[in-house]
């Protein structure tokens, strides 16, 4: 019987297997940031342990940084202390750090791939659940807690029970105006917010293959929103083309050797999965969420369901009450107060291009506050080189500096209580973008159209 892509990568990283189904799994690369690492450094120091492989760690501040005036000292005292603590820890332990102002700084899940740190066949972890993003390259990548951050720092290993495998195949051609974000919101709406728990997902099929690397990252990024530990896509020519020439990508003979190895990373014919789903690409339309978990998504032209398919009606009602919506109603015509374009899900150059392309020569609606936060300094630089900053500014969008920003509202970038925000981020939980904030998740295109129209519309009527 053949092996799955997941099996191949996992098996290549098992240091030893213990009784009770736990594997000691070797971790090739560890990304750290200011929020989930300080207690791990402290843990190591308390135990008198050193970093085991400091050269396999890369650090950057992203969650808790301002997205304005990054050249100035951070104003908020606690945030400043947290970012300073990361700097001090990295200096003390000699860990590579891309701090504020560094040309490589950005959201961990944006900079890993763009620097060529993320490679097919690698295992990668970070104290952040959206580490699943890196699976787009055929890596096993997943989020961990701070105790595990300390374990990887001390030993480059984790003790993991092997997840079950799931394959989600999407064949066919995507409809006009449908992007990677719509694909993943569609999948989660079908599987629910818990449907992937216990599984590692492989995304396959012609519609997935047709996606760019950045789009594949968007799909894998939100695997955690259906509870899956991670998602991955077999590497192909699109992957190799993206990696080639990047800062830390293999070069020369090493490159050829690497590509030969990467070409072996796919699910064999006949490999079996614990669960399989198939969806036709033609069924996917521009999506939006109406509730307070990412599984509560609908086609933008559809009505909110009358009730949830199974159980949980109290939670469904609680969710609608929080959002100020009624069961069964349409979202079309609902006025929107904020549009946020950013986060590790949708802040890459292709996302910014989609927005700029649509808003060029248009003006945002007066009732909308439109914020656009690039995923990294490199994305920001590229956007400026292409003149996207000017197009966005003329349309009334504020292009800010890189960070996680209003995706989780740790810094000043928050949505006020009661306000509606169409957001390209990944979570619509209660208060996620600020206490009382109401989040509707959507693609960059839907966000752009919403900003111009000032309300939710059927975007298909607005495309050429």
């Amino acid at each position, binding site marked *: 019987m053949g092996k799955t892509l997941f099996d191949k990568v996992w098996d290549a990283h098992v240091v030893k297997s213990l009784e009770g189904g736990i594997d000691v799994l070797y971790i090739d690369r560890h990304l750290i940031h200011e929020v989930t690492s300080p207690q791990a450094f402290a843990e190591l120091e308390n135990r008198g342990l050193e970093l085991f492989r400091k050269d396999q760690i890369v650090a950057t501040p992203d969650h808790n940084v301002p997205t304005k005036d990054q050249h100035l000292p951070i104003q908020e005292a606690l*945030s400043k202390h*947290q970012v300073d603590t990361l700097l001090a820890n990295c200096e003390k332990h000699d860990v590579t750090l891309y701090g504020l102002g560094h040309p490589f700084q950005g959201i961990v899940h944006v900079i890993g791939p763009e620097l060529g740190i993320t490679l097919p066949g690698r295992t990668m972890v970070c104290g*952040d659940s959206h580490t699943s993003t890196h699976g787009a390259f055929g890596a096993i990548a997943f989020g961990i807690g*701070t105790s*595990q951050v300390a374990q990887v720092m001390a030993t480059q290993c984790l*003790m993991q029970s092997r*997840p079950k495998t799931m394959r989600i195949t999407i064949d066919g051609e995507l409809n006009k105006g449908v992007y990677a974000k719509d694909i993943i919101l569609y999948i989660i709406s079908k599987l629910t917010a818990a449907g992937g728990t216990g599984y590692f997902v492989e995304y396959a099929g012609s519609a997935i293959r047709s996606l760019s690397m950045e789009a594949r990252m968007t799909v894998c990024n939100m695997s955690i929103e259906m509870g899956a530990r991670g998602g991955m896509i077999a590497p192909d020519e699109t992957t190799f083309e993206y990696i080639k020439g990047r800062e830390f990508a293999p070069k020369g003979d090493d490159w050829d050797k690497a590509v030969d190895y990467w070409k072996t990373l796919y699910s064999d014919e006949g490999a079996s999965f614990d669960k399989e789903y198939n969806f036709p690409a033609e069924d996917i339309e521009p999506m939006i969420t109406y509730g307070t978990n990412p599984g509560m998504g609908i086609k933008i032209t559809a009505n909110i369901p009358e009730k949830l398919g199974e*159980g949980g009606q109290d939670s469904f009602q609680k969710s609608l009450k929080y959002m100020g919506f009624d069961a069964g109603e349409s979202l079309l015509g609902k006025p929107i107060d904020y549009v946020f374009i950013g986060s590790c899900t949708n802040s890459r150059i292709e996302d910014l291009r989609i927005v700029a392309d649509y808003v060029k020569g248009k003006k945002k609606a007066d009732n909308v506050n439109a914020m656009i936060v690039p995923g990294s300094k490199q994305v920001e630089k590229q956007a400026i080189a292409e003149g996207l900053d000017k197009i966005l500014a003329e349309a009334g969008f504020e292009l800010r500096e890189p960070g996680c920003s209003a995706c989780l509202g740790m810094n000043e970038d928050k949505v006020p209580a009661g306000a509606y925000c169409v957001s390209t981020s990944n979570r619509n939980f209660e208060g*996620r973008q600020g206490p009382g904030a109401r989040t509707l998740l959507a693609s960059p295109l839907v966000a752009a159209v919403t900003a111009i129209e000032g309300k939710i519309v059927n975007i298909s009527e607005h495309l050429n």
Partner: protein
Amino acid sequence: MEKFNKVVSTAVPMPIEDIDTDQIIPARFLKATNRDGFGDNLFRDWRYVKGDEPKKDFVLNDSTYSGEILVAGRNFGCGSSREHAAWSLYDYGFKVVVSSFFADIFKGNALNNGLLPVQVSEEFLQELLATVKANPSTEITVDLPSQTISFDGKSDSFEVNSYKKECLLNGYDDIDYLVSIKNEIEAYEASSTVI
């Protein structure tokens, strides 16, 4: 990590599904660089209005219910990987969370901090919630060695990985074990063919 063997306690019922870690501890309270005091902000935005005025109808503000066991709806702990969620529950005084389904990362984080996730059937969960609501003084016994949860003569068993069980019973962490096999990790590195 503190040892865990058995907890006998009343419980706090929270019959809400899909409780994500942003509710357990909102992001704006993650700015601390140590592990202390997170219990003060546990369920912050469900617990308080206008900053620090307790919300009367929230269960943690209802003196009818107390105890070391939190009983919550299915898919508890979904969302962000923040271990601060486990720290805040533990710091507040919970030793056990009972649900019919846990999100993976939360479950791992809880086990790494001596907070026991007890997964029971949906039927048992509903029965437990109803019993606690009807009689808040109901005592619930969670016994790790026998992997059972019982109240009022009713009982259910729960799964816990055998290695993790040993860790909890003895107060060991993964890190202790991993450090002890460094030679094997180095041997793996020398033989690995991954690029």
